[in-house]
């Protein structure tokens, strides 16, 4: 019996399918990692260093352990396995034992019956420190005469790029130095985990909010001295990530406390602790010199990028590579001499955040493009168009750009979008810069327009095989998917069923618990999950489809190669057979697992040459701002953007990524900065670290440029990072345009405008 449902829109690829977890999230019934609870559960808490750099002389837990309700207190000596962890270099102690190298570094963990008991126990631990002078400047870290603050030294990585003719010169030379502040990911769902020890103490189960279950599993198992399979991870609902959940935070501590006490243990950071508990976006300084012809064509770039990686390595070396390999921006450049350094200091550790090194590079190269426009007298849109990179061009790494590169369309479509109406003479006070502060005077407000254009690599680089795994099971017309892909809010749980519906002609698609009971999915980062895990789901569904066609073919005596899916039916493409997938898969179960790998990449050589990236996406942003030049306040009025997305698989999800990314880029442009002085974090709270609110949200005009990329599994490029990259320089350029001031740092502060 064939039933057709063609009158109903099916939630296939290309449709704005709704989130399967959406209603539960609006009702508060969706379980975030902080919502898990267990019988007989203890609370865990972390003791952290108040000093950015100190030698630990002694730790006395005798008073703390006697507090009623305290079950255990763990120190470095209680770690049974590896004493350190890290994503690339294992240089960060589970608990500091000899030195503390940043403010907030963990020293001990306590488990007790109540969060308040934990707090009292932490207060009762007595530590004697020999406080040392922290290393807090990049220049000092680069100075070989500065004593090392870590056995691995003070430089995480130096990478030179030497390409083409180092002696090439242009008719015009433009120089600039750009500074980027330390941004926090500021996801709303604080770090939280619940660990359940196995009854025999030989294993542990951890429910945790993370970006990459299998990487956590590996690092935890090493520290616990357990085989990987004894450490089972399940994804607790993730309240945003943006890079901050790539590194280990409370995972090892929670497992250790649970194994030591034999009871379930929950850990949950406060907002202040979260600022110390995860890595941030690298602050840095970039010096750039462009040589151009009189016609504004780039001849050579020279310069340096110096990133402050803070106390431990995290992903600093990879962030640096992304930064230096994107320093040319989305522009042709035949010659380059560029040096990048990522250094260790006693500042907070920095690592992944949306944009991953390209945000920093873009702020500098776009600042330069505006300076080039001014120096050559060429319009700022025209100077960019004149230099844009195309598919087939060679980049400064020697890598040939193979991705589809519709950059000209991105720029032209952005330029064609309407500008906002001029501010009236008596605007609503909340539309003025300063918002609810209501101090701005209309007479002091000047409007400015600025541009930013960028390219961003997709997936991991430098030879890393960040594959993804998915399983598809078809039975009686419905599909169950299994993957370990972290759903952090981006909507993979919406997309994966859309893929299955498109490939298999089914409507009912569910997904199993996201955990380590299947192969790795890689990290939810680098704009990679639509491509990688999407590719894995697509592959698994295609394998199942082949098996279904074999089954139908043998039942009906038809060569399976003649069969195809049409809507929800299996059809014979050169015959008359048409049966529903439901009917075709009745009493038939088939399950296939597929591992998707992207093409291989290479390490860079000592001159920064090599095919190190997989693919690229492009985007243009135009910002319109109103600036109160007297008070230094900025209101971002409108952002227009055209983004190269390859193919739109879910328009509403893409819109959400673009609008959300723009808000984060706006934050970096005008408000968000972790203030660190002498290694001390001054603003670890939402009162003092300012985030964009509803009143700060600009009008956003979006054009999605669809030119499917033949290298992408479904033609779709990742869309997560591009929105937040060039919007920051566009906003800062608009502020320069409004004020006439040369502002070469972000975030832009009132004093940068007024003084």
């Amino acid at each position, binding site marked *: 019996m064939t039933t057709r449902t063609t009158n109903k829109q099916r939630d296939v690829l290309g449709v704005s399918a709704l*989130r399967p977890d959406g209603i539960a999230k609006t009702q508060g019934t969706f379980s975030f990692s*902080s919502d898990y609870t267990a019988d007989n559960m203890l609370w865990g808490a972390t003791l952290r260093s108040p000093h950015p750099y100190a030698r630990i002389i002694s730790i006395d837990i005798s008073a703390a352990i006697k507090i009623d309700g305290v079950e255990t207190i763990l120190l470095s000596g209680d770690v049974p396995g590896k004493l350190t962890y890290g994503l690339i270099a294992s240089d960060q102690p589970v608990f500091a034992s000899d030195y503390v190298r940043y403010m907030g570094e963990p020293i001990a963990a306590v488990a007790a019956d*109540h969060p308040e008991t934990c707090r009292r126990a932490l207060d009762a631990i007595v530590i004697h420190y020999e406080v040392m002078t922290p290393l807090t400047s990049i220049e000092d870290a680069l100075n070989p005469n500065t004593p090392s603050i870590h056995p691995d030294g003070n430089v995480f990585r130096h990478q030179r790029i030497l390409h083409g003719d180092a002696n090439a010169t242009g008719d015009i030379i433009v120089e600039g130095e750009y500074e980027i502040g330390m941004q926090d990911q500021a996801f*709303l769902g604080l770090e939280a985990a619940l660990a359940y020890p196995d009854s025999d103490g030989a294993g542990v189960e951890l429910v945790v909010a993370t970006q990459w279950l299998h990487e956590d599993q590996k690092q935890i198992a090493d520290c616990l001295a357990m085989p990987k399979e004894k450490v089972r991870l399940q994804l607790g609902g993730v309240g*945003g990530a943006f890079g901050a959940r790539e590194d280990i935070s409370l995972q090892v501590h929670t497992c250790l406390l649970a194994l030591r006490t034999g009871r379930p243990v929950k850990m949950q950071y406060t*907002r202040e602790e979260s600022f110390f508990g995860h890595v941030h976006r690298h602050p840095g300084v970039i010096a750039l010199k462009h040589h151009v012809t009189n016609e504004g064509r780039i001849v050579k770039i020279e310069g340096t990028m110096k990133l402050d990686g803070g106390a431990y390595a995290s992903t600093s070396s990879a962030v640096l590579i992304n930064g230096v390999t994107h320093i040319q921006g989305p522009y042709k450049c035949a010659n380059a001499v560029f040096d990048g350094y990522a250094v260790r200091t006693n500042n907070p550790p920095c690592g992944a955040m949306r944009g991953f090194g390209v945000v920093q590079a873009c702020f500098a190269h776009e600042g330069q493009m505006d300076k080039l426009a001014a120096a050559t007298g060429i319009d700022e849109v025209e100077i960019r168009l004149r230099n844009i990179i195309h598919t087939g061009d060679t980049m400064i790494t020697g890598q040939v750009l193979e991705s589809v590169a519709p950059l000209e369309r991105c720029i032209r479509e952005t330029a064609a979008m309407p500008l906002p109406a001029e501010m009236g003479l008596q605007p609503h006070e*909340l539309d003025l810069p300063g*918002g609810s502060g209501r101090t701005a005077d209309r007479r002091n407000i000047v409007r400015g327009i600025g541009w930013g254009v960028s390219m961003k690599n997709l997936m991991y680089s430098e030879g890393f095989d960040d594959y993804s795994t998915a399983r598809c099971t078809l039975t009686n017309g419905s599909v169950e998917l299994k993957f370990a892909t972290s759903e952090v809010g981006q909507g993979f749980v919406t997309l994966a069923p859309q893929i299955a519906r498109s490939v298999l002609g089914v409507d009912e698609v569910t997904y199993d618990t996201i955990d380590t009971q299947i192969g790795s999915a890689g990290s939810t980062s680098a704009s990679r999950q639509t491509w990688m895990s999407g590719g894995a789901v697509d592959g698994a569904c295609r394998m199942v489809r082949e098996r279904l066609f074999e089954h139908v073919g043998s039942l009906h005596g038809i060569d399976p190669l003649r069969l195809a899916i049409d809507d929800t039916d299996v059809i014979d493409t050169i015959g008359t057979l048409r049966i529903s997938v439901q009917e075709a898969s009745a009493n038939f179960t088939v399950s296939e697992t597929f591992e998707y790998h992207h093409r291989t990449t290479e390490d860079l050589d000592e001159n920064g040459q090599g095919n190190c990236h997989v693919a690229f996406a492009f985007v243009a942003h135009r910002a319109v701002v109103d600036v109160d030049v007297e008070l230094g306040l900025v209101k971002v009025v409108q952002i227009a953007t055209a983004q190269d997305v390859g193919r739109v698989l879910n328009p509403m999800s893409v819109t959400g990524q673009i609008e959300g990314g723009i808000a984060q880029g706006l934050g970096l442009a005008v408000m968000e900065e972790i203030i660190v002085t002498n290694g001390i974090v001054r603003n670890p709270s939402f009162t003092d670290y300012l985030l964009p609110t*509803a009143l700060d949200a600009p009008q*956003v005009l979006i054009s999605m440029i669809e030119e499917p990329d033949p290298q992408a599994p479904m033609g779709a490029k990742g869309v997560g990072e591009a929105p937040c990259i060039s919007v920051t320089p566009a906003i800062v350029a608009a502020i320069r345009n409004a004020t006439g001031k040369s502002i070469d740092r972000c975030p832009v502060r009132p004093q940068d405008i007024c003084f």
Partner: protein
Amino acid sequence: MSTSPEMYSLRVNGTEQHVKDAWIGESLLYVLRERLGFMGAKGACEQGECGSCTVLINNDAVCSCLVMAASAIDTDITTVEGLATTETPNDIQQAFVTEGAVQCGFCTPGLIVAVHHLLETNSSPSEIEVKEALSGNICRCTGYGRIFSAVQLVISQREKSVS
């Protein structure tokens, strides 16, 4: 806890809830979540900046992290769980999903309560009034655009159903 335990009751979503063995310093957010199992209110800053923990006390929208639980005795507390049944989400909840206003969803329950409160007090707010009313609820994922769309959808649907 070694401190002397307290026993009191709170009226949550119209039902008396007995709070046993509590420490007097516990916030309403903690008691709702950890003692009474109302997990809809979320803690994200614990200093009244982000709005994730928004609940209604006597129909005023408040940050439950800033309210001592014991001070909410004899008030009417409404959490997101009290706005609709699990089986039948209300029009605001449905609009948030339909318009793509939910990504990670951590801010969502607080926003649902805030939007409910706004539309109870002002059934046809202007665009800027919506922005102002929601400016105490931080969302880090969406950039707010889809949230504004969801609110506009509810307003227009309610206007239609009235006319």
